[in-house]
């Protein structure tokens, strides 16, 4: 809550700053990402937690197992691995700039804060399947955490502390030195920018500093049949839909997407997904909620054709009639929205220091 308040203040400040800037240049205010304050100790703790497999039920996977740092903190497989024993039914989105979002998941089903998102990811059976009470006791058995939680001001290791520390780490995952932000777009990218806002009509939905309107649209992305043809993925899909209250979940043959927000009786909201940010796309292939498109040129070709086939497809999508060169320029622009790769120790916990230690004077100390 207070993170968001602080962010809102910052955004106001940034907007003001940009407005002044606008007088002397052509920079566009909403293209600037707000600067956020980061508590270094809390973020460092969050980083160690993010890469710790003991945050999952059987201690086999961490947040980073699906949000791969070498893939822009997104999943490199079309469908994320999910929890052992099952697969997942969507492609884990990038966590870079996720702190700027106002709702999360491809279907936008959580619109509160990253604390709730963290809780959901750790506890859902198809993602990390962790009983957070057990997680808390695991962390208390690791002296490094005992110290880090204390130093971060969270007291002893706790579920609440985890749900605060991980979002604090996520604040560090923001675009760094993207050509769009440093005003270093190539000539081709600049041509692409014009197409993006004009003939390509991309900016109808991909607006603002995140290049997302934060709304759900149906673009007709083809269904990923692996969700249904692989029982490991299908079981996660069924469990999720059962949990979300989608009727007739056994017969579902498509991902209903943001229908879980609106549950429209006529089903016209089926197949809508939240407009993703276009930042850091260079690293986050494959694309779309289900990883069905492998490369950026293919994404541009997809939109050039007016999107995919779907009876609920958005009316905003039309054939674009972009030339081959125009499509290339558009891809150049999209690449210009990606900054430095976040793959250094600043963003990855590379120390192999995860362990449990016996409490030797067990009978004499308080639990």
């Amino acid at each position, binding site marked *: 809550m207070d993170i968001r308040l602080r962010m809102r203040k910052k955004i106001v400040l940034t907007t003001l700053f940009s407005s002044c800037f606008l007088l002397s240049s052509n920079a566009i205010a909403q293209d600037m990402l707000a600067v956020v304050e980061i508590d270094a100790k809390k973020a460092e703790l969050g980083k160690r937690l993010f890469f710790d497999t*003991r945050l*999952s*039920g*059987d*201690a*086999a996977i961490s947040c980073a197992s699906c949000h791969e740092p070498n893939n822009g903190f997104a999943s490199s497989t079309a469908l994320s691995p999910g*929890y*052992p*024993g*099952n697969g997942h039914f969507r492609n884990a989105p990038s966590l870079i700039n996720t702190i700027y979002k106002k709702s999360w998941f491809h279907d936008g089903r959580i619109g509160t804060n990253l604390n709730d998102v963290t809780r959901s990811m750790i506890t859902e*059976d*198809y993602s990390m*399947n962790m*009983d957070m*009470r*057990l997680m*808390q*006791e*695991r962390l*208390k*058995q690791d002296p490094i955490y005992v110290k880090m939680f204390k130093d971060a001001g969270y007291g002893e290791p706790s579920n609440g502390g985890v749900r605060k520390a991980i979002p604090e780490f996520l604040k560090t995952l923001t675009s760094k030195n993207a050509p769009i932000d440093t005003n270093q777009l190539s000539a081709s990218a600049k041509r692409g920018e014009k197409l993006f806002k004009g003939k390509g009509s991309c900016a109808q939905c991909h607006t603002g500093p995140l290049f997302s309107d934060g709304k759900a649209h149906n673009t007709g992305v083809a*269904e990923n*049949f692996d969700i*249904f*043809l*692989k*029982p*490991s993925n*299908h*079981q*996660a899909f*069924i*469990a999720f839909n*059962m*949990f979300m209250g989608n009727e007739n979940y*056994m017969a579902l*043959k*498509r991902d209903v997407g943001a229908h879980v927000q609106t549950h429209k009786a006529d089903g016209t909201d089926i*197949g809508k997904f939240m407009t993703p940010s276009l930042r850091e796309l260079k690293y986050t292939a494959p694309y779309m909620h289900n990883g069905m498109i492998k490369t950026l040129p293919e994404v541009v070709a997809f939109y050039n054709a007016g999107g995919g*086939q*779907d*009876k609920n497809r958005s009316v905003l999508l039309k054939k674009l009639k972009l030339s081959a060169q125009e499509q290339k320029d558009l891809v150049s622009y999209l690449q210009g929205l990606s900054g430095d790769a976040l793959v250094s120790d600043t963003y990855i916990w590379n120390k192999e220091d995860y362990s*449990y*230690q*016996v*409490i030797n004077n*067990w*009978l004499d100390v*308080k*639990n």
Partner: protein
Amino acid sequence: MQLQPLKQKFISINKLCALVTFTLTALALPLPASAQEVPPLAPLGEVPIPADNPMSEAKTELGKILFFDGRLGGDGSTSCGSCHIPTLGWDWPDNVSLGYPGTIHWRNSQTIINSAYYGKLFWAGSAKSLEGQAKSAAKGGIAGNGEDDIMEARLALIPDYRKRFNDVFGDNWPKVSNAWKAIAAYERTLVQRDTPIDKYLAGDKSALTDSQVAGKELFEGKAGCVQCHNGALASDQKHYNIGVPPLKRWEEDAMAQITFRYELYAKGSTEEMYRNTKGDPGIYFRSKLPQQKGMFRTPSIRYTKHTAPYMHNGSIKTLADVVDFYNRGGIAKDGRSSAFIKTKSDLIKPLNLSVTEKKHLLAFIESFSGDKITEEIPALPEYAPLFSIEELKEAKK
């Protein structure tokens, strides 16, 4: 809490008396043996079958397969049979049970054999039926760690299960609640009723050796075992603190320490209790009555020849050690006893058994076990996609 109904205006005197009697009975500690009529040892009768879960061959066969299927759990790795291994006494041969990957359990895995006769399952009697036990074990964070929705989704994607659940329960899609019923039905087939003690009590006086007969006298007399280990099951299913000390492993094993604290936390403790408790409070978690801390439900003596180690935390390795433990008055080899010494049962006193008497007693205890019961682990049915590509292509037009 129990006084609340007294405030109601129209409560009848009869009801009031019944309530007071009930309350007093519930709170009363077990009476000393001398004042107590205990049911005599008896041959084990027919397995009780609950009215809402009748037996059938198709059901027990389904239950057998499910018992060994790890997909009824969190990550597909841990089935009932993982901690209840047929060749190892249908339990786990370590002090505390194997537990879910990434954890260990905090209590000893109990044998499945004759579990059908209990009205209280688990060491603290937290389940009232085998159906309830199977469900709790499959879902518990340090046991199966499974969730209903994904377990049910898995069953739905296994064609053989779809057919079997339909045949047995009429389910269109397998219901996970029926999986527990099938498993419970299977467990009701895992009984042993032809042990030497069963034969002896049925009239075959040659079924016990002279030593065992001498042991029986001690069991029912000087050693006082029958005060709690009575009736056909050799368990009164009541709760006692017999003085079993906390497991040493809790002082030496980091994973065990994690689980210990988790259980205190998850089962509901005050902060004061969570911080300071170093022994398993047992049945306390059911009643939240301080005078029940450290009490556990009396286990059956049947099949114990095959189920070492013993006690709720598996801290006693052999049956001979168990006899020694009781002979010392509920005190372990190293002199330790219960962490909740105030609730230790008055029934547990030094027995002054001679070496020979202990031998007889041990021999008699072994008469409660027949041969090992084994099981061929069934082949598990495989997943298959629910839809064809053609059906999927039709879905979005």
